[in-house]
């Protein structure tokens, strides 16, 4: 009985200290927003996560060209990652990212950005980036 009460006390103390929280990183938003139509390549691409993640690859697939890796920073765990001067081509650009979620799950997604010279910049009201986890 004494052991049971000790266990129960320890359990309740831990319960009081534990706060329910999300256990899986997801993308909170990107800049530019996926689905954007821009007149030229943006100065940077930013991916924001809802909690810390570790970005492992950022690749752009452009029309008629082989996939190209983009350098990004920072290198370790962060809630925000940025690729400077992505030099996106005219047409539809698919920016594919892969990351390791805070809970150890691999996650990935795609940001679509269309470059159309002379177009008025438009961003969709809702995020369109495809995001999945394994």
């Amino acid at each position, binding site marked *: 009985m004494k052991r049971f009460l000790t266990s129960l006390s*320890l*359990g309740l103390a831990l319960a009081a200290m534990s706060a329910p929280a999300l256990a*899986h990183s997801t993308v909170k938003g990107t800049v530019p927003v996926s689905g954007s139509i821009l007149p030229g390549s943006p100065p940077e691409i930013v991916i924001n996560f809802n909690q810390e993640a570790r970005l492992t690859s950022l690749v752009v697939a452009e029309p008629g060209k082989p996939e190209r890796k983009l350098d990004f920073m920072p290198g370790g765990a962060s809630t925000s990652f940025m690729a400077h001067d992505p030099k996106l081509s005219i047409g539809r650009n698919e920016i594919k990212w892969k990351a390791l979620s805070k809970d150890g799950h691999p996650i990935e997604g795609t940001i679509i950005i269309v470059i159309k010279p002379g177009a008025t910049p438009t961003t969709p009201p809702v995020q369109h980036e495809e995001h999945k986890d*394994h």
Partner: protein
Amino acid sequence: MLEALAAFAKLMLYAGALSGAGAAFAWASLGQRLGPVGKFAPHIVASGAGLTLLASFATILILIQRLGGEFSPPTISAVIGGPTGFAAGLQLAGAILLLAFARGQGWAWIARVTGGGLVVASFAVNGHAAAVDLVSGIVACVHVLATAWWLGALLLLRPACRQLTGAALDQLVHAFSRIASAVITNLLLAGVLLILTLVDFSHTPWLSPYGQTLAIKVSLATLVLGLALYNKVRLAPRLADDGGAAAITLRRSITAEIGLIAAVVSATSFLTTYTSPHT
């Protein structure tokens, strides 16, 4: 395919960690009462530690494949430099200690318990619970520690039902029951706490894949607990009076208990690979 491999590697990791560390803990806590059955302990510890080593390496390699298969600096940094790498380091260090001292006498039990502790501690630093906060990681660690002891003790108790007779078996089973009461209480408490911490019940979790798999795991766990209670209340008291027949029945019941624990662990490896509490 990679997800299936990841789930299988995780299952092997759980099996190795729970049996290797668990046998070390159970061996240390049941001590001399194991009598000649103690000779089985080094084999279980070494096998579990070996499996932990292999599965930990495999888990890392499969994770790198799932991240694109490139051994690029960002991927290596993410896998090795983060909680996953830290957990793998603890598993490797713990498994090496267990392997090195699996057969040692005297103070070697301290190295084995330390090795088992390192392996179990790896569950506090990586995974769904560890991602929430340190306290949740510690709760997950307590859950794994209790499961490990339980499984390790059952793996030793099973041959004891054949090797020991009369008072020796009766004393061992009673010693096991005394410790098991406290261990299983902690196991249950930690399990309930983890569910309350990880699952957001306001988002109809039971309809989600995570909720469904969790429900299967909880159902299987309830069956194991029912069987354990039956062994404690009905079979254990009969050992002193009805030695042979009761020992045979207890051995069969323990085999079923180990099988059910294996099913719970399988459900857990599926749960932690394919699903997440909040997707």
